[in-house]
């Protein structure tokens, strides 16, 4: 009975969490579209500040890791394809893997680690310092002031970083292929263009938008749930990273499953 009760409570709690996430997204959309009518617009300055933090400041680390992944894909691809004498087909593997899989995944994981955790820490700290209450009593809706700018900055910058990551990864892969297989960069680019179609690009792009929403909402929910001072903020930050990365990987799998089953 005790076990069943625990399962029941956990299930109810999970439904509650999903409901809260839905409410946060719905409220953010509400404030974006109807805020100006209530004379409570989502401030463009706040969105731009978040975009700088989420996107621009992440460019160096995304570039380094994407280049590394691109090069690793080329190395592993050549080794495995050599067994079949098909190493010249490596470009196909690099292009598909990078655009459909690794660019969104690497970007999502990096943004979750950098910005999702920062969002959880910021909101958690604001909560324990009564800054959330201060916003509320000043007539400033916290969702409009904090959540909506972070969500929209993520929705714009995660796909943008994903595209950037794809280019860097493909370029780094091309450099290695050029050295190892003596393929010119022009020929490599032509092979990449032949290998990819719009569906592949759309697949990676759609995933990156889903990851952006997950990172923002998980960060906010963990920050808003902080209890017990600075230690609570630390726990929420860690939990936010773990949950966001888990959600990204599981969503990725579901996406790929749906895409492959639906052709």
């Amino acid at each position, binding site marked *: 009975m005790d076990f069943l009760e625990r399962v029941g409570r956990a299930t109810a709690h999970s439904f509650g969490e999903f409901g809260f996430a839905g409410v946060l997204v719905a409220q953010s959309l509400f404030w974006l579209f109807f805020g100006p009518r209530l004379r*409570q617009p989502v401030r463009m300055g706040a969105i731009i500040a978040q975009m700088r933090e989420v996107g621009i400041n992440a460019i160096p680390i995304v570039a380094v890791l994407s280049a590394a992944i691109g090069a690793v894909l080329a190395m592993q691809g050549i080794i495995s394809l050599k067994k079949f004498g098909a190493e010249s087909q490596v470009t196909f593997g690099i292009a598909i893997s990078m655009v459909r899989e690794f660019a969104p995944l690497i970007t999502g994981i990096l943004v979750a680690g950098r910005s999702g955790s920062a969002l959880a820490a910021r909101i958690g700290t604001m909560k324990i*310092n009564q800054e959330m209450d201060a916003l509320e*009593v000043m*007539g*400033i809706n916290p969702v409009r002031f904090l959540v909506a700018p972070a969500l929209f900055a993520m929705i714009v910058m995660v796909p943008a970083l994903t595209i950037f990551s794809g280019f860097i990864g493909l370029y780094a892969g091309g450099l290695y292929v050029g050295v190892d297989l003596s393929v010119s960069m022009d020929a490599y680019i032509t092979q990449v263009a032949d290998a990819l179609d719009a569906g592949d690009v759309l697949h990676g792009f759609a995933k990156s938008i889903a990851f952006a929403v997950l990172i923002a909402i998980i960060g906010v929910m963990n920050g808003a749930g902080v209890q017990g001072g600075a230690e609570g903020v630390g726990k929420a930050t860690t939990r936010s990273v773990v949950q966001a990365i888990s959600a990204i990987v599981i969503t990725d799998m579901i996406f790929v499953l749906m895409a492959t089953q639906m052709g």
Partner: protein
Amino acid sequence: MAEETQRPGAGAKKMIEVEELVTHYGTRLILQGVSMDVRDGEIMVIMGGSGSGKSTLLRYLMALETPTSGAMRILDKDIADLSMKEMFALRKKLGVAFQGGALFSSMTVGENIMLPLFEHTNLDRQTMEIMVRLKLEAVDLAGFEDLMPSELSGGMIKRAAFARAVIMDPRILFCDEPSAGLDPVVSSALDDLILRLRDAMGMAIVVVTHELESAFKIADRITVLDRGKILFIGTVEELRNHPSERIQNLLNRRMEDDPVDPDEYLRRLMGEKMQEGATP
């Protein structure tokens, strides 16, 4: 009531009315049928020991919570009936100085104080800056607008919080434990600031504190909460002369033991949860 008429600005209009407010935290009963009011221009001090429910009552008075049982009217508006738009309009008329200041750490002192103006008015930047400097002058923090909150002392943070709380010229100002964590000199200066703000702006002020000296200095009326119930509402003089032993113990800072129910005590020792309805 004689005390009230001697105080400047004390009027009869009720700015806040609370009737039979009952609140729970989970299954725990926090406020048990609290009724009180706050009048225009008066300083109402809410006192009580730890767990008496004064912080919970303050959250309701600030319209941060909606009562599930009982009625709350703030500036003649029934809180339970307000639409989101009406709630926004109401909140522009309330100012709050939180216990820790609750200044936004990512903004300068000036930006913190300007935020309500920026969000709720169409004033140009220069006018807003002038208003910020005026309020900083009023709280003796002139010239500190470009500092970050982390660069201020505890007393200065509280004064900056007061400046932010009054930037929209609120009708009611709430102060949560203004003296907490401050030395007696700074604490006394904050009391003077509260009196000065009331005299200059004529607003009603609600102060939650457990500092007797501070309460006696600034209060027009005092509400004493005890275990979620109102123990006393009246002037400082009435409180001092009150015949109740419980109140006199409170004034003389003597702890009074709660009456012990042997069965309840035994259940607590056995690790059973507190009964529903038991006070904290």
